[in-house]
């Protein structure tokens, strides 16, 4: 505020800095804990007092990706020496990796679910952002009858609880055979993200001066050419921010994935919790699955932090 700070103001500022740091640490502690658990040997995951210092291991990830069975007896020293490092890690846990008849390592369900998550989230993001950009341009540049009502209608599609929409969607999908398919989820997530994409992109496109396209039109460009060659490049950062938001929503979605998929097209969010089951779950494996699943979102958040901040507060700052 004022350039010259009094002593009490400086003290106050220091307290604020300390408080913010403490809050940040508290907020990050759960994420740190899951990350560290993902690299722990199984016997250290559930100790009291909690183990903070340990030698990180990759065994949770080996277990996450492979199908295993209980080891019968102890492997002979020759067997142990001949096995690759990742197999030895599983031996140490009293398990062995299941192989197919041809000696191939059998993968667990996780790699497949992770791929499904990628396919569904990326495709639906491309569709939602693509359609959203076109529609936002339409609303931003042309006169549309009942524009406010249409925009509100678009937004209102996002207000419904997913479970409410899921019941009729489940019945419709069952009737047309879209249950448990990638396209089934892609369509749902696109519909879900489209409203958001239109609103966000409209904000970004409204900021691009109309004169840019008008100049292009005078130069003999068609409206389409002006859109693709002038508006799209100008809106690139906005498109990127919108894409990340749509990706995160689709990547994290649980309710629809739980209801609409079971084997073939199931994504990771319903899969990881289903691995807890009853009895004593191996928390290191669950933590490893969670950690890998969080990774893309954490990277995106960090890379696009400035755009995210802008995108999120967009509607709020400019009314």
């Amino acid at each position, binding site marked *: 505020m004022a350039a010259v700070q009094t002593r009490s103001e400086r003290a106050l500022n220091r307290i604020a800095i300390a408080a913010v740091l403490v809050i940040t640490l508290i907020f990050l502690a759960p994420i740190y804990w899951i990350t560290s658990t993902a690299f722990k040997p199984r016997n250290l995951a559930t100790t009291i007092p909690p183990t903070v210092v340990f030698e990180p291991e990759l065994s949770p990830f080996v277990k996450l990706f492979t199908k295993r069975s209980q080891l019968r007896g102890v492997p002979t020293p020759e067997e142990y020496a001949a096995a690759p490092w990742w197999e030895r890690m599983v031996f140490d846990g009293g398990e062995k990796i299941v192989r197919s008849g041809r000696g191939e390592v059998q993968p667990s369900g996780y790699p497949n679910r992770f791929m499904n998550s990628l396919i569904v989230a990326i495709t639906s993001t491309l569709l939602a952002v693509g359609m959203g950009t076109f529609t936002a341009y*339409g609303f931003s540049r042309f006169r549309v009858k009942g524009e406010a009502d249409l925009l509100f209608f678009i937004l209102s599609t996002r207000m419904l609880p997913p479970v409410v929409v899921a019941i009729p969607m489940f019945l419709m999908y069952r009737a047309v055979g879209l249950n448990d398919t990638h396209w089934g989820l892609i369509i749902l997530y696109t519909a879900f993200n489209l409203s958001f994409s239109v609103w966000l992109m409209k904000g970004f496109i409204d900021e691009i001066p109309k004169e840019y396209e008008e100049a292009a039109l005078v130069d003999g460009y068609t*409206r389409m050419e002006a859109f693709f060659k002038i508006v799209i490049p100008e809106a690139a950062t906005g498109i990127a921010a919108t894409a990340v938001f749509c990706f995160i929503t689709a990547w994290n979605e649980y309710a629809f994935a739980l209801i609409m998929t079971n084997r073939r097209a199931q994504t990771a969010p319903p899969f*990881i919790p289903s691995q807890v089951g009853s009895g004593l779950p191996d928390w290191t494996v669950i933590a490893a699955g969670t950690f890998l699943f969080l990774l893309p979102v954490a990277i995106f958040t960090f890379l696009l932090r400035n755009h995210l901040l802008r995108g999120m507060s967009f509607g709020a700052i400019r009314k």
Partner: protein
Amino acid sequence: MATAVMTSLDTKSRAASRGMSDIRIRNLFIIPTILFLIVFNIFPLIYSLGYSFTDFRASSNAPVNFVGLQNYRELLNDPFIWSNFAITAKYVIVSVTGQVIVGFGTAMLLNRDIPMKGLLTTLLLLPMMLSMAVVGLFWKLLYDPSFGIINYTLGLGSFEWLSNPDVALYAVAITDIWMWSPFVMLLSLAGLSAVPKHLYEAAAIDRAGPFYTFFRITLPLVAPILMIAIIFRTMEAFKTFDLAYILTSQPTTEVISIRLYKMAFQEWQTGRSCALAYIVLIMILAITNIYVKYLNKVKER
């Protein structure tokens, strides 16, 4: 590709020499989206409205009978449904209040000359970027009575967070507060940074105390954005499913979405669940309306 089509049109007709007309482009850009949303949002709702008047069960091939308003009448007279709504209301109030306090408080702290402000803000955003389902899962590990780090750090011994019916709902709300306070913080921060600096300078010249400055300048100017954050969070908390469903299975945490899910996909009372979905829908619309009216009032001031 679109341009190629247009150039071929150009050579054919002079009228189309400027490509498609603006009206055609506008329709081409807007209508598919509207149709898509109608087909995948409005149509299912109409479809389920029809089923809500029947005794349809998606798990059996029994003939479907029209039962009129019977589903609605039974649901509205069912004390269990009302207790689900009461749980939801309690959950919404606790978690939204918590988020406003933590989120707005953090924003007030951050709205100063703080080194690495951008980095701290980004780090604080991380929880809300994660999947509710996965967050629920790893909080289950943190809450574990015998080896969870929460009990260990707070020195609570083997306190039961999730299997104690009196505490479970608060445990879910705490996780929700952890996850979504950053959202409130972000919007509040946007609001706080938009408050004109000269107002504070004027207040300082008038020797106004910090409380006066806060209640007469800061709060009224941030109120509209804070209200938007509260609306969003209330709607979302009302819809809660993932977090509560994964964290516990206590009857005291059975929010309305979980009841709805169980009715539809475990008990397979499809017709009845469609009716319940409509009751929920009407409630959400009513709450939104109240909020929007209140928001407009706040803005006018």
